[in-house]
C-alpha cells in the first residue's frame, strides 16, 4: 500500500493556514508544506482549489480539501489521535458556534477597527470590544474554550494570540488587558504555551512590517474618498 501523502498549500503569514499546521502538529501528522505566492498563484493551487484559489488547501492521497473549517473537520475525522472536537454533540455544536463567531463576527470587527480612522475608529473599537466581552464571557472559568485541553474553538480563535498583539503595537493601544479580560489574557498565555503551539507563530517583525504596509496601502487607496 502506498504511503499516505499529505501536503499543505499555504503562506507563512496566513492565520487560516496556521490553524491547519496546529491541527496536523497536534495529531502528529507529517506533511509537506508548500509556500504559495498569492500574487502569482501556482498551477498546483489553481488545480487544487479552482473555486476560490486560496490557501489553505490540504492534499491527502491526491484529494484536495479547501476552507479551513472543512479541513479541520476532515483532519479530525481522518486522524483519530488527540481529538480536536469533543465527543458530545452539544459540545461539538458549541465548538463550531464559537469558531464561526470568531471568523464571521469578531475578525471582521477587528479588521474594521484596523482600517478605520478618526470617529469611525472609535465606533469600530466599541464594536470589536463588545465581541471581546462576549468571548471573555464564554471563556469564564475555563482554561481553554474546549475545557481543560485545547480544541477546535481554540485552534479557530488562536489567531487572536499574535494578531491582537500586532494590532496593539500598530494602533498603539492595549486591547486585551488583564483587568478587563482576565480569562482571555490567561487563555492567550495557556494557548501559546501549549506543546505544538509554542514557537509556531510567524516571525513578529515580519508580520509587523506586513500589517503596517497593508494598512498604509489601504489608506492610500481610500484617500480622497469618504
Amino acid at each position: 500500500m502506498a504511503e499516505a501523502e499529505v501536503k499543505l498549500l499555504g503562506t507563512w503569514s496566513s492565520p487560516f493556514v496556521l490553524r491547519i499546521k496546529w491541527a496536523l502538529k497536534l495529531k502528529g501528522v507529517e506533511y509537506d508544506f508548500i509556500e504559495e505566492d498569492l500574487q502569482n498563484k501556482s498551477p498546483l493551487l489553481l488545480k487544487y482549489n479552482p473555486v476560490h484559489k486560496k490557501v489553505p488547501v490540504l492534499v491527502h492521497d491526491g484529494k484536495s480539501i479547501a476552507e479551513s473549517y472543512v479541513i479541520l473537520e476532515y483532519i479530525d475525522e481522518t486522524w483519530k489521535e488527540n481529538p480536536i472536537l469533543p465527543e458530545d454533540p452539544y459540545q461539538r455544536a458549541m465548538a463550531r458556534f464559537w469558531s464561526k463567531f470568531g471568523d464571521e463576527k469578531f475578525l471582521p470587527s477587528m479588521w474594521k477597527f484596523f482600517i478605520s480612522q478618526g470617529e469611525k475608529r472609535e465606533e469600530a473599537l466599541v464594536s470589536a470590544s463588545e465581541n471581546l466581552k462576549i468571548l471573555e464571557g464564554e471563556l469564564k472559568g475555563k482554561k481553554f474554550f474546549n475545557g481543560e485541553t485545547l480544541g477546535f474553538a481554540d485552534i479557530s480563535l488562536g489567531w487572536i494570540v499574535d494578531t491582537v498583539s500586532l494590532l496593539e503595537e500598530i494602533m498603539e493601544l492595549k486591547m486585551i488587558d488583564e483587568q478587563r479580560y482576565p480569562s482571555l489574557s490567561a487563555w492567550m498565555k495557556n494557548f501559546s504555551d501549549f506543546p505544538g503551539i509554542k514557537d509556531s507563530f510567524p516571525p513578529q517583525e515580519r508580520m509587523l512590517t506586513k500589517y503596517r504596509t497593508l494598512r498604509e496601502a489601504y489608506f492610500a487607496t481610500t484617500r480622497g474618498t469618504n
Partner: protein
Amino acid sequence: MEGAPLKLHGMWASFYVHRVQLVLHLKGVEYEYVEEDLSNKSRALLLQNPVHKKVPVLLHGDRPIAESTIIIEYIDEFWREKPILPTDPYERAVVRFWCHFVDDTLRPSFGAILRSSAEGQGAAVDNFRQNLEFLEAELRDGFCKGRKFFGGERIGLLDIVMGCGLYWNSASEDVLGLKIIDQESFPFFTSWFESFNEAKEVKEVIPPTEKLVEYVKGLLQKMFN
C-alpha cells in the same frame, strides 16, 4: 438528553428555519415550533440566542443551539438514523465545502444582483451565474454525476442548504423582470431542483412556493421603493 423536549424558534418564511425543519422531518424527530415575530423578538429567543438574536434556534431540553448548519450537524450527530451527511471523511469534506460555498459565496452574489444599480446588474448576474456553474458542473460531471440529489438517492445536507430558499430566485426574477437561472444554461441544476421540490418531505415541510414568493416579492418591492 434522551427524551428531552425539542423546541424550534423560527419564522415561517426563513429558509434557514426551513432547513432545520426539513432535517427534523427527514429524521422523524418530534418538535414544538415557536413562530417568532422578528420585529418584536420574544424574551425566550433573546435568552437562547443572546449573541446573534436570530432564528433558527433549537432548544434541546435546556440547551440552545444557533446557526442553521450547526443545528443540522447537531441533529445529525444526536439522532444517527437516516444520516444527512455521508460517512466517508472526504465525502463529508466535499459536502461541507459546497455548503460553505452556497452560504458564503453563491447566496451573497445573488444578494449583489438585488443591490446592484442598473449599470451593474449585468455584471452581478454574470458573477452569480459563474458561481452557480460550479454546482451545475458537480451535477453534470463532477462528484454528484448521475445522482438524483447532491446527496445521492436521498436528500442530503447540500440539497437542503441549496434547495431551501430558492424561492428568492423566483421572486427576484418576477420583480426584476429577468431570468437568472434558466434551464438552457443550467439543465442539471434545474432538473435537480424539480426533484427537490417533488420530494415528499419537502412538500410536507416547506410552505407553498407561491406563498413564499409573494412574501419575498413584498420585501423586494419595499426594498426597491
